[in-house]
């Protein structure tokens, strides 16, 4: 069975980000458990909401949201390190032509940042993304673009 347009978008994000940023191949999907500190920086893509707004009888607009956690462990300035990593991921996603075929209006709608201290300074910048996808009623697997 074909994957939903939401899954296609998230899978494409992961594929585009693999080995394309300082996180190298440390790109996870919905990872629920902790990442070892020596495996930083790491990206963790998390599925968010996908709200459908009906547009007449012919289709609807699906607003697909997801987030990308940027995990860093550094000596001191975690905000700068996490921001630099986010700018790398943003540039990759914005330039990805395959992602652009899956929906419209890719947008980073906001970020949250948290830092804490352990054996190193640990930071997590969560960037929220969204994209709109037009779909036909009853078919969640194909975008109409």
């Amino acid at each position: 069975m074909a994957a939903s347009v939401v899954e296609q978008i998230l899978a494409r994000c992961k594929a585009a980000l693999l080995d394309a940023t300082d996180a190298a191949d440390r790109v996870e999907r919905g990872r629920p458990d902790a990442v070892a500190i020596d495996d930083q920086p790491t990206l963790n893509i998390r599925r968010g909401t996908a709200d459908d707004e009906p547009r007449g009888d012919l289709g609807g607009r699906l607003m697909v949201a997801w987030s990308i956690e940027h995990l860093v462990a550094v000596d001191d300035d975690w905000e700068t390190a996490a921001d630099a990593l986010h700018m790398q991921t943003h540039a990759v996603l914005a330039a990805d032509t395959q992602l652009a075929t899956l929906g419209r209006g890719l947008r980073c709608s906001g970020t949250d940042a948290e830092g804490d201290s352990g054996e190193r300074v640990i930071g997590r910048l969560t960037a929220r993304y969204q994209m709109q996808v037009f779909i036909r009623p009853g078919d969640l697997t194909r975008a109409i673009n």
Partner: protein
Amino acid sequence: MSFAALEARINAVTVAKLANATATIAGEVVAGMFDADYQEILGTSAAVPAFAAESASLATVPRGAALTIDCAALGLEDAPYLVAEVQPDNGITRLLLRRVVG
């Protein structure tokens, strides 16, 4: 015996009995208790290293000071750390440490 003297005596005995490591700070070797339990911090699994000893031995250690830890039980030999936080508490001072990454 005053309470302060009693407390100092108990602290000295506690450190003498429980010390599992030494910290070398500015050439001075201090015996104390080292631990580095793992915690999950913001989605990252990280050790939280700390060294505790009698406050008199650590009184002048500032935040940011460099030190090395020797702890045979944890396989550490001249392991380099920086002091991230100094927590004095009734005669025992706990140093929260940050690992120096080469």
